[in-house]
Every structure is written in C-alpha cells, then in structure tokens.
C-alpha cells in the first residue's frame, strides 16, 4: 500500500495540520506558545504522578497520551506495528534525561521552539540556532561512525508496554479528575496556578493528540530529523513539514490575536540569550544521537519501538531531576544548578558520541 503521508506533500500537509492544531490548543486553554510541547508536557506528567513537586507544572497532559495511542492505532491500521528493542537502552535513557534537562534550560523542546517563534517570541531564534548547532555536532559523530547498535525484533508485549502505560495514565485522569481548588485528586497532582493549571478541555487535548499521533506516525514527522537530514544529506523532505508547521502556526496565531513580537515578557520564557542557545545545543545533540526529536520518540514508541519508550521514560525522569535539583530554568532565569547539569549533559553526549563507534 502506498503511504501518501510519507510523500513531500504528505508531510507538508501534516506540518500544516499540527501548525493549526497547536495554536488552537492554546486558544482552548493551553499555556502561551505551548499548544504542544513534548518536553514541557512530559515534565507536567512527571509532576502529575508526583515524581517532582514543582506545584506550577503538574498535570497529566492528554496530548502526550494521544501522541502514543494515536501512533499505535495508525501503526496497527497500516500493519506497521513492529515490536523491537535492544539498542543500548541505558544510553538512550540518559540521552532522554539530558535532552529533557537541555530543553528545560531553554524552556521548550524543538516543537515549542517553533511555536514560540510562530508566536513572536524572538528568544526562540536563539533556541533554534542552538538546536541546529547541537544537531550539527551530532552529524559529525554520525559521519564518524557513531552507532547505538542494532535493535532486535521483540514480542508484541515489548512494543505495547509504553502504550499500555499511557492508557493507564488516561484511566487515572478519568478516575481522579481535577477537583476545583484542590491540588491533589487521588494519586494525581494538579497545579492550581502556573502553566500546569492552564490546559485545553480533556476531549479536545486528547483528540488533537490522537490526530497528531496518527498523522505523524504515518508521515515520520520529526523536528530534529528535518535539520539533521539537511545538514547530513542536503535533503529537505522532513524540513518541509517543519516549515509548514511554522507558517501555519504563525497564520493561526495572527488570526487569533496570539502573536506578540519581542524578547521580553514572553509567556513561559526567559531572555538569557546564551542559555537559550546552549540549552538547545544539549537537547539537539541528545536528540540527534538518539535518532529522533521528542515527538518522534513518542510516535516510534507507539509503533512498537521499546528503545524509544526507554528514551521517553528517560525524559520523564530527567524532568523530575530537573525540578527536584534546581536544574530547570524558569521565567526568572537559570536554575541554581543549571550550569553544572548542562556541563554534565554535554560531557555525557560527547563521551557517547566518541565512544560508541562501529569498528571500521
């Protein structure tokens, strides 16, 4: 069967769809320039289950659940569900953790960097430049023979674990819904103020997540791969999707009055130029070494990739570390231990990039 979403126009269409849905999610209640942010939302999930207690970023984000389950459904429908695992899971776990820490120094993953730019936040220019810089370092390692090794075909159960975890999270959301003015409902934490308290209605958030998950699984949409393929192969296929997202989000933001140009006073952002750049260098490098942006890792986990699932869990645990130990930035500025965490993350990524090379 021909996969029309994996064509040039297919991926541009998917980018347009995401670029329309994300600002709409903001319009429906998600935080500013955060219609979809994989890093922020996984961080909110870490808070919702109490892995960290930063009370402004705790919410079981249905978009993330939808990404994984939408991808699973699309993969099953297209007979593209391929359970596999076994490619350096411990390395992928830590790459996920440090990717998250880098993203939380910037305050957003590549998806949010695009949405911030589409909302007029010029700090995102530094973030995107850092992202491209980090990916460029990654391409040097890839050219030098870097590999995380082969995965193996695995029983279906392996590929179903993360989708089942997400289905369980969804069940928790229904069993323990938000209670007016209460920070805890059963086993789930809910923010009463801050970005964690801002969210679109559950049905809309879950629906948008499922749609994006399905479309992205079929089209292989990847914000990191877009720049990697350009740098590595001079190929613009994936870039078409990313640019379509940016243009669509810009148009929808203008139409909805959500566009405001400048560096200062942007929603959930700081204007430390160096750290906006450097945070995303770390994130971009970690994503490049792991073979996909945080969204793509969720979509691959949905289609059965147990190694991507480990990367996702690494990101969630990394978010908990980031907020428990003062590594994450806030609109007030860099976290008290952001510098040390960044140095450690860069050292780890450079070590892995140099140490894991296939024998010539």
């Amino acid at each position, binding site marked *: 069967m021909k*996969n029309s979403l*994996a064509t040039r126009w297919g991926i541009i269409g998917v980018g347009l769809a995401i670029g329309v849905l994300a600002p709409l999610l903001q319009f429906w209640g998600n935080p500013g320039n955060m219609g979809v942010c994989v890093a922020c939302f996984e961080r909110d999930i870490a808070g919702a289950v109490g892995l960290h207690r930063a009370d402004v970023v705790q919410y079981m984000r249905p978009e993330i659940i939808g990404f994984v389950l939408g991808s699973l459904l699309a993969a099953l429908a*297209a007979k*593209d569900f*391929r359970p*596999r695992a*076994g*490619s350096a899971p411990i390395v992928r776990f830590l790459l996920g953790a440090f990717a998250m820490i880098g993203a939380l120094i910037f305050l957003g993953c590549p998806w949010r960097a695009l949405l911030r730019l589409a909302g007029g936040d010029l700090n995102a220019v530094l973030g995107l430049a850092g992202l491209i810089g980090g990916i460029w370092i990654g391409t040097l390692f*890839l*050219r030098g023979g870097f*590999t*995380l*090794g*082969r*995965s*193996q*075909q695995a029983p279906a159960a392996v590929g179903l674990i993360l989708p089942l975890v997400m289905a369980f999270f969804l069940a928790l959301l229904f069993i323990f819904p938000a209670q007016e003015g209460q920070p805890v409902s059963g086993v789930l934490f809910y923010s009463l103020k801050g970005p964690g308290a801002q969210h679109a209605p559950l049905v809309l958030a879950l629906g948008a997540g499922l749609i994006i998950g399905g479309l992205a699984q079929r089209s*292989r949409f*990847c914000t990191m*791969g877009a720049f*990697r*393929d350009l740098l*590595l*192969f001079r*190929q613009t*296929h994936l870039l078409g999707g990313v640019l379509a997202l940016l243009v669509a989000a810009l148009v929808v933001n203008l139409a909805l009055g959500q566009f405001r140009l400048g560096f200062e006073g942007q929603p959930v952002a700081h204007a430390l130029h160096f750290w906006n750049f450097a945070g995303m260098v770390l994130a971009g490098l970690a994503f490049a070494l*792991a*073979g*996909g942006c945080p969204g793509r890792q969720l979509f691959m986990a949905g289609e059965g990739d147990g*190694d991507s699932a480990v990367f996702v869990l690494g990101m969630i645990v990394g978010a908990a570390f980031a907020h428990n130990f003062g590594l994450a930035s806030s609109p007030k500025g860099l976290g008290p231990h952001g510098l040390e965490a960044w140095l450690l993350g860069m050292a780890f990524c450079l070590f892995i990039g140099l140490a894991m090379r296939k024998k010539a």
Partner: protein
Amino acid sequence: MAETVDARGLSCPQPVLDALAAMKRLGSGTIEVLVDTEASKENVSRAAAGSGWRVENVAENSGEYRLTISKS
C-alpha cells in the same frame, strides 16, 4: 553478485548513511539493502532516487524488506 548492505535494526539515519556509502563506493551496479522498518524502506528509497539510483524491487519477508537498487 550484488553488494548487500544489512541495515536491519539500525536507528535513523544509519540505514541511509550506510546505503549512500555503498552507492558512493560502487558508483554504479546493483546493491541490495536490508531494512526492517517501513520508515527505513522509505528513507533509503528516497535517498537512492535522490542520488540517481533506481529502486528496482522491494521484497517483503516476515517484516523485513530487501530493496534492490541499481545504477547503470
């Protein structure tokens, strides 16, 4: 005997890197590329076409694909 690139189980973008390396090394002829995800199949096909190689055949066997690409 065609050269074979075994890219099964490798993460993005290694199947494409390995296939392109083989295309560059041989210059012309026939190469068989083994992959085990649909995404890798699409990516290798796209890279081959972009480098002036023709995808002659894609054979599927229990979740794996054998791509035959050639250039005269």
